[in-house]
């Protein structure tokens, strides 16, 4: 016969005010198998926990039910208390009298009845609980950071500085990401490249960091502490060991008119190129779509120019498999392009540009050497209109969220323009100014008050061209919706921040969730913001939601801290609440018939196969086997299994059935 102890918590007034806890405790005494039952004001307090420990020792309990709050809140607390008293922690169950009963009902007799029923369920369950031992898994102490922008660089440096190995993966030819494209950064207006490039160089030189640029994650399997990543290293067509980065090949390349992605299409690059002069690594890449050698099979000027014979036209993509223990996703963002706005001419007017293009125009290393010039005719604009919330907070564009960074960078753009052209006019159309952040509001005020940027609250309905000017039609909603018309030379759209290209594909490859817009989903919006729901995969930067640089760097540090904390242990302890395929005596071995429908149903790829052979090594039976390191205990396989061959430890079919039948 079981010896169960029931402990009913009042949770102060939370449960006690609507449930008669004393009565519940008294009724529980009558339940078969219950030998001890008491109530207390705060079970989670020290005296409360002592009551449980004392009862276990004195009464020799073999199961404990704590009727209190949600197990999410205090299950670890009570399980620890129970194990301190010498009982297996998994012989302790919680009945949720707070969220499931007292908070949602009035004070009536039936509320107390329901509370009793909830306890009864758990009493029946705990009778069938089995002692479980935590699962130990080894950890590979190498981290994989995906994305070489500021988030990835920061996370990689922080992990590497704690003496852990890092593989930093970047799909473009150079580290740097979007931050390398920026001119100055708010709110201090320091030069973006000046603060980023030292970090890029540090990341490249760090003895603990293996840099893999021009490479992408192809495939991922495994689980926390034991991932196996397949990386596709794309062929640069250049021997990286021989290349000295002298740049002679770049000068000789005859294909010169290729739109430059780094300069957002405002400049030209060649077919063999380095994205920008400060690129890390400073090794060129041959763009085989445009290179004459690959298109026409005849040019070899770069080969002739190269003093170290580093050009390798025959070089092929490589697939490299690495073992890693944790992954930081820092894949960044993209912005909506100006051609997605019918009201602003679908990108037909070259002088309507987006924020990143303006950054390149304002950058000293940009295509205009920092002089703001119109893309159409190269004239310096006298009037610029900046539109905040272009696409953001606009359900019709599919972006309901605030892109967060636009208010600040629009103020910065207007300010930079006014600094470069003090007599020019800068107008900003905005919906609200969201400048929450250290020194942020002061920055916006400075743009308005000191630099004389005209802020107009309202949206722009249409932009069209007339006599070489862009006519911006909007309304000033602070003046009762009075129509406003501005003749501008250039319009800058602060377009919405969106998940990067390929983000959803990546999410599928590595089995992390995405929110409705395609940003990676965090495990908990408040309490676990840098973790994903897949253990061992962490988030940094704008791949999770729009973020500015300070936040991105802070989050990257947070993700790095999580990785380092994981790596500080030699083995990983996991909850043993995992599914298992049952075993039967031979010749059945298991109820599993090996149909493997569970294999496709498992969202964590935790199901593999196990074979039983006879003495001669002849295959006797093939059945499913669940990897306890990968299993998250979701129970999908249990529901899928027709023969009920799979059961979930801690939530077995028998336990659930007994719970239901107790009602």
């Amino acid at each position, binding site marked *: 016969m079981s010896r169960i102890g029931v402990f009913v918590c009042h949770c102060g007034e939370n449960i006690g005010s609507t449930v008669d806890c004393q009565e519940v405790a008294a009724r529980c005494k009558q339940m078969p198998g219950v030998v001890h039952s008491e109530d207390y004001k705060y079970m989670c307090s020290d005296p409360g926990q002592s009551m449980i420990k004392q009862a276990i020792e004195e009464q020799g309990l073999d199961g404990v039910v704590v009727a209190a709050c949600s197990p999410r809140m205090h299950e670890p607390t009570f399980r620890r208390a129970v194990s301190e008293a010498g009982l297996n922690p998994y012989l302790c169950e919680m009945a949720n009298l707070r969220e499931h009963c007292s908070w949602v009902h009035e004070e009536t007799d039936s509320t107390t009845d329901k509370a009793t029923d909830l306890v009864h369920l758990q009493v029946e369950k705990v009778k069938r609980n089995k002692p479980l031992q935590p699962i130990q898994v080894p950890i590979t102490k190498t981290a994989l950071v995906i994305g070489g922008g500021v988030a990835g660089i920061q996370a990689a440096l922080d992990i590497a500085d704690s003496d852990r190995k890092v593989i930093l993966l970047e799909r473009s030819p150079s580290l740097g990401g979007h931050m390398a494209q920026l001119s100055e950064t708010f709110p201090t207006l320091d030069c973006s490249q000046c603060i980023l490039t030292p970090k890029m160089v540090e990341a490249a030189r760090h003895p603990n960091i293996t840099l893999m640029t021009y490479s992408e994650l192809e495939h991922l399997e495994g689980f926390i502490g034991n991932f196996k990543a397949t990386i596709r290293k794309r062929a640069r067509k250049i021997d990286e060991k021989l290349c000295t980065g002298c740049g002679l090949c770049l000068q000789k390349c005859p294909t010169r008119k290729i739109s430059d992605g780094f300069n957002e299409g405002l400049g030209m690059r060649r077919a063999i190129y380095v994205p920008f002069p400060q690129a890390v690594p400073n090794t060129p890449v041959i763009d085989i779509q445009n290179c004459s050698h690959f298109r026409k099979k005849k040019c070899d000027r770069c080969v002739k120019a190269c003093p170290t014979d580093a050009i390798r036209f025959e070089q092929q993509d490589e697939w490299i498999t690495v073992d890693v223990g944790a992954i930081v996703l820092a894949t960044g963002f993209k912005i909506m392009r100006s051609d997605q706005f019918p009201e602003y001419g679908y990108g037909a007017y070259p002088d309507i540009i987006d924020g990143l293009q303006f950054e390149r125009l304002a950058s000293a290393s940009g295509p205009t050497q920092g002089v703001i010039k119109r893309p159409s005719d190269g004239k310096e604009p006298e009037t610029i209109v900046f539109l905040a919330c272009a696409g953001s907070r606009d359900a019709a564009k599919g972006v309901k969220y605030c892109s967060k960074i636009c208010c600040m960078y629009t103020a910065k753009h207007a300010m930079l323009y006014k600094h470069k052209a003090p007599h020019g006019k800068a107008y900003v159309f905005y919906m609200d100014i969201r400048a929450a952040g250290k020194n942020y509001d002061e920055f916006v005020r400075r743009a308005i008050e000191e630099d004389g940027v005209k802020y107009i609250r309202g949206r722009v309905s249409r932009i069209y061209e007339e006599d070489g000017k862009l006519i911006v039609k909007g309304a000033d909603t602070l003046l009762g919706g009075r129509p406003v018309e501005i003749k501008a030379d250039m319009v800058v759209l602060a377009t919405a921040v969106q998940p990067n290209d390929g983000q959803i594909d990546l999410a599928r490859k590595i089995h992390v969730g995405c929110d409705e817009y395609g940003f990676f989903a965090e495990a908990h919006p408040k309490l676990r913001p840098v973790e994903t729901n897949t253990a061992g995969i962490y988030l940094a930067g704008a791949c999770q939601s729009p973020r500015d640089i300070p936040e991105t760097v802070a989050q990257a540090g947070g993700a790095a801290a999580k990785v380092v904390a994981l790596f500080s242990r030699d083995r990983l302890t996991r909850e043993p609440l995992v599914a298992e395929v049952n075993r039967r005596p031979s010749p*059945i071995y298991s109820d599993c*018939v090996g149909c*493997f429908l569970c294999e496709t*149903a498992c969202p964590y790829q935790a199901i593999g196969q196990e074979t039983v052979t006879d003495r001669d090594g002849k295959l006797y039976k093939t059945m499913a086997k669940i990897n306890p390191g990968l299993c998250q205990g979701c129970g999908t396989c249990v529901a899928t299994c027709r023969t009920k061959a799979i059961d979930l430890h801690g939530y077995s079919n*028998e336990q659930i059935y007994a719970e239901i039948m107790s009602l």
Partner: protein
Amino acid sequence: MEALRTKAKELLAQGEVQVVIGYEAGTAGVRRPCFVRTAESAIRLVWDTNCIGNLAGYLTRPEIKRFGKPAIVANNAVLRSLLQLVAERQLQQDAVLALAVAQDGVVTELPTAQAVEDYLAISPGGLSAADREKMEHLAQLSREERWTFWQRELERCIKCYACRSSCPMCYCGHCTMDCNRPQWVSVPSHALGNLEYHTVRAMHLAGRCVQCGECGRACPVGIPIHLLTCYAEESVHRQFGQQAGTRAKLDYALGAFRPDDKESFIR
């Protein structure tokens, strides 16, 4: 029929297969399964329009497996079962030699699952016209009428499990119905237990039923129980586009999701 006998004789004589699973003459014109293990007894094999039973159920039986490599006289239902069994890894790709017999008696050897797939792609077959008519009739009834219909039908069930035994997809060694810790479904053949049994069976066959109708034929009290599993199967086909018994590669709608699924909640 002669072509079939000759082929079976040849295969057994050459030792290519150890057993030919086919039909022989039973009493009163009924065709019953037979297991021909020697070339001489190939003469027992019969093929005519009365050979409608699905023999594929025998392929997963341990006592039949013990005979050695089988050849099976196959109509389209058998071929569909064969594919689904391969998809569910109950049979190896080339473990069974299917002898597809056409209306005119021409025998085609289908040694691999791929060959079966190709053969079925030309003439998939499916529910008989009579069954189709019954299905349509049921679909036209109101929900309450359908409920009454099934209650009345299932009332007669004696839980002999003939439907389960005859079904080629009910190959589990230990059926949920036999599970008694916990006892999911009550054993006696009362109305509730019967309903539970047949609903669970239909759900277990949704997305897996090859629509051979064998369960309905096997029922000693004449419940058209195959209509329930066929309906479940057709619902899955309608909703998800997947159909059991068309491919040798597992494509189980109820256990997996596709990235291009029309429902977005699962992402």
